[in-house]
């Protein structure tokens, strides 16, 4: 995949996703440090944007986990902001997203996997938490345990591949459109296909550029936000599922219809 490597920056022999994740870390830490030491009562500017983002994530947590899930805000918000910033970095020309490498997305998924099991074990105790894998009746245990095992192992796998596939697919699509446009337009506009080729080539180039900038780029922006949102949403659903194992699956807080999605 040599054609898809970002050609601009020299990463000194380190893999691209490592170096660009440092860039994302620098941006996020810099934004956090740029906030005023004493927050103004009526926020403006950067503080306003950050408060809006945190309030959005808090409202999601209240909806999915319930008000006592607010102590998980650092984990969820860090994941959300970091994934969103990483996805956005891939849209800047010359950079590539750290999340279009499976190592990065797998590390997020492993963190979420251990986090929600740890949260469940810490709340219910090790043995009661493991006992819930056996299902509602002890007689069903030989059937339920493999099913639950497979579905729980499929969760980090699906989290990884969903984020990785979306980012890499968008990256490949943009690269192919770009190189195809450049190649075809230079061939057509150089007159190799005659005057008709020049006309069609010119119109086609303009049309492709307009299509890329006007449709593909906003679509990639939407996908960047959506994939970060979905990752956070699923993490919250897994945490909610781990928290309410003892009380059965009908414990309110708007997690009803979300339970079906949690067993994806």
């Amino acid at each position, binding site marked *: 995949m040599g054609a898809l490597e970002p050609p601009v920056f020299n990463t000194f022999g380190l893999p691209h996703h490592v170096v660009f994740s440092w860039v994302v870390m620098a941006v996020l830490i810099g934004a956090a440090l740029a906030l005023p030491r004493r927050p103004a009562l009526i926020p403006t500017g950067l503080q306003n944007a950050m408060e809006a983002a945190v309030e959005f994530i808090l409202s999601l947590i209240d909806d999915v986990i319930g008000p006592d899930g607010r102590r998980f805000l650092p984990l969820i918000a860090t994941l959300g902001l970091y994934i969103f910033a990483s996805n956005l970095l891939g849209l800047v020309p010359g950079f590539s997203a750290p999340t279009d490498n499976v190592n990065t997305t797998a590390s997020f998924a492993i963190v979420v996997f251990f986090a929600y099991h740890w949260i469940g074990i810490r709340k219910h105790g090790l043995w009661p938490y493991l006992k819930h894998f056996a299902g509602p009746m002890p007689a069903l245990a030989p059937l339920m345990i493999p099913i639950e095992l497979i579905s729980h192992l499929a969760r980090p796998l699906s989290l990884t591949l969903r984020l990785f596939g979306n980012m890499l697919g968008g990256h490949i699509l943009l690269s192919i459109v770009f190189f195809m446009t450049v190649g075809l337009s230079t061939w057509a506009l150089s007159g190799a296909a005659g005057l008709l080729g020049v006309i069609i080539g010119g119109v086609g180039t303009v049309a492709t550029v307009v299509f890329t900038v006007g449709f593909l780029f906003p679509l990639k922006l939407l996908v960047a936000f*959506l994939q970060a949102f979905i990752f956070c949403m699923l993490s919250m659903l897994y945490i909610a599922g781990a928290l309410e194992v003892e009380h059965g699956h009908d414990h309110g807080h708007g997690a009803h219809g979300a339970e079906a999605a949690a067993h994806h």
Partner: protein
Amino acid sequence: MRIVLVILVVALGLTGEVASAQQAASAGALAGSWLGPFTVVAAGIGMALAAGLCGLGQGRAIAAALEGMARQPGAAARIQTAMIIGLALIESLAIYTLVIAIILLFANPFK
């Protein structure tokens, strides 16, 4: 104590990330077998199937969501949120097929 734990985890993570990035592609015993050209066809047909069926599934999801929103405009925001989540989950099935197709095209073990 907590600080020590955090520093330990971060150090482990950094070394793990750099180490796992040195992936060497090696030609195994399957390289050059007769299966090579067919894997490219498999990637294309598989992706087409996945995209088509994913389109059907998402169409049904959006149709149901629109019908619900038309019946109860007051619940439109909650239905829209659930619709977006459902669409992303359905799309992830096609994304898994895309990952297999990318592996077959760029990191093919059979070529």
